């Protein structure tokens, strides 16, 4: 193994081609993963930050919050179900906005809420909003007055909150009446009366099984509701499952390509070094020791490629326009690092058969 490390240190140029290819693949994996994470986080923040365990929609909404409406009577029935600890009404409206009467338009999701959203205080005063920090990229600052929708309903940003976007639009969290006013302005045909929400977030008792409570809610409302766990509600968001599976397939293929790069490179190296390995075997090196050296080289080259690729990806992330939902999460970097190292070990190990077949007698014949 020391031989392998010394070769890496003294002949780094020999590994430049494989290292460069792996670096590019790392950049690709990080950017693909970053886009997937950006799309996912930007689409699902409102749901992921719910402190409740369940959300209820009206049954005819096909689990889409924008089509759903639940009135006070349905909410009372939900409140009466065993295992339900508390309920909170939530409504959303997608609108354009202007900052302080300017001409530049931005897009936001106005979220009317009653509470229980992680990291978000109790609802602000009427006419005020907590703004998702991603709206900063659209020129919003704390203290700005935003004019929402066609009737330019004014709200003043009083503070930032994090990660409460919906469908890639930053959230503006307002108290329910302000949301209803904006909804009536933006979609007069879909305006809702007091007490009616699009979604009821349901907190369950600590000892209750959320899935059983969900079924009980739908029974209690006579099938008028469709109650989902948070994970199921996220999966039901338009496009989330499709984009996740598409990106994951691309990422999987990229890992396979990385494995092939490692395998082909070290297969070539093994062929090139057949004479050298024959000599080493003749003087007492085992196939396992030679393979361990190859795998060590594969892992070190891959680790170097990850480090360099990570720096390049971070640099690219800084110059990507704010409209592109690229988020480089530490967990994604860890996933790529572990995936690449496993790929390196597997790719390097594919040379095992070649190494075993090298005849030590070839050193002397």
């Amino acid at each position: 193994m020391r031989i392998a490390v010394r070769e890496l240190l003294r002949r780094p140029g020999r590994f430049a081609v494989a290292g460069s290819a792996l670096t590019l693949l790392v950049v690709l994996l990080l950017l693909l993963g970053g886009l997937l994470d950006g799309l996912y986080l930007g689409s699902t923040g409102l749901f992921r930050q719910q402190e409740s365990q369940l959300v209820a929609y009206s049954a005819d909404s096909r689990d889409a919050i924008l089509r759903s409406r639940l009135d006070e009577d349905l909410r009372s029935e939900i409140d009466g179900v065993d295992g339900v600890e508390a309920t909170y009404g939530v409504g959303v409206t997608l609108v354009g906005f202007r900052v302080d009467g300017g001409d530049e338009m931005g897009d936001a999701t106005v979220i009317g809420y009653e509470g229980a959203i992680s990291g978000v205080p109790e609802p602000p005063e009427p006419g005020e909003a907590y703004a998702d920090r991603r709206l900063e990229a659209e020129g919003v600052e704390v203290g700005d007055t935003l004019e929402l929708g066609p009737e330019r309903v004014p709200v003043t940003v009083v503070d930032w909150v994090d990660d409460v976007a919906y469908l890639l639009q930053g959230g503006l969290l307002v108290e329910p009446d302000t949301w209803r006013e904006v909804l009536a302005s933006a979609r007069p045909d879909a305006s809702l009366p007091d007490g009616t929400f699009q979604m009821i977030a349901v907190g369950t008792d600590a000892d209750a099984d959320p899935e059983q409570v969900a079924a009980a809610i739908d029974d209690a409302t006579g099938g008028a509701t469709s109650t989902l766990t948070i994970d199921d509600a996220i999966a039901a968001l338009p496009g989330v499952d499709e984009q996740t599976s598409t990106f994951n397939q691309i990422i999987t293929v990229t890992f396979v390509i990385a494995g092939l790069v490692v395998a082909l490179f070290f297969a070539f190296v093994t062929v090139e070094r057949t004479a050298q390995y024959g000599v080493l075997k003749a003087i007492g090196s085992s196939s396992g020791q030679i393979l361990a050296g190859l795998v060590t080289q594969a892992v070190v080259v891959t680790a170097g490629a990850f480090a360099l690729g990570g720096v390049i990806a971070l640099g690219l992330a800084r110059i990507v326009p704010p409209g592109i939902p690229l988020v480089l999460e530490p967990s994604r970097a860890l996933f790529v690092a572990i995936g690449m190292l496993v790929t390196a070990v597997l790719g390097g190990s594919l040379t095992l058969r070649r190494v075993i077949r090298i005849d030590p007698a070839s050193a002397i014949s």
Partner: protein
Amino acid sequence: MPALEMTDVRKTYRSGDTEVMALDRASLTLGDDEILALVGPSGSGKTTLLSIAGGLLTPSDGSVVVGGEEISSLDAKALTRFRRDKVGFVFQSVNLVPFLTARENLLVVAEMGRRDAKESRQRADTLLDELDLGDRGGNLPNQLSGGERQRVAIGRALMNEPALVLIDEPTSALDTKLGEQVMELITNEVKSRSTAAIIVTHDTRMTHYADRSVEISDGVLAA
């Protein structure tokens, strides 16, 4: 105890439907500090005999005892350990690891055998001094002359304190003068350690450096 005892050793290969006899009932005994020159033309079986004595090939039949250990029935793993611990090789084309220094080429043997690192370093330095390479230990093979590389290869073969050193055509790529210098060096180094050695050569001018010579032809050792 003899360094090598080969008794009725046969080695056959299959070539299509025919069986080729590479070594035919070869018997040979080598004293524990004896140097033997094995002389024969190309294809005579001398490399096969050397490979069997060094545990690189297993015989089809017969007994091979090296340093008191019967090796003819050892499996591949045991033969690897045997080569690492009991024999030293000097190859025809030297075959040093090109990205390791002279000293590291010697230490490779110790690292493979997981020997004590400090003792191994001391032994490598002693060997390099004795081979007049004391100030060249930090040089890579491409920074050494042909003779120096040959000396490093000899040092590598002696690194594991072998019972038997096997030397394949050490002078084939050298002119007569340099060839004689190399043979003198090899025999001096081997003799000074009371180690046995077989030197394979087709150059009969070099045989006087050995204690005795044995000819081999068509796989048969001369009586």
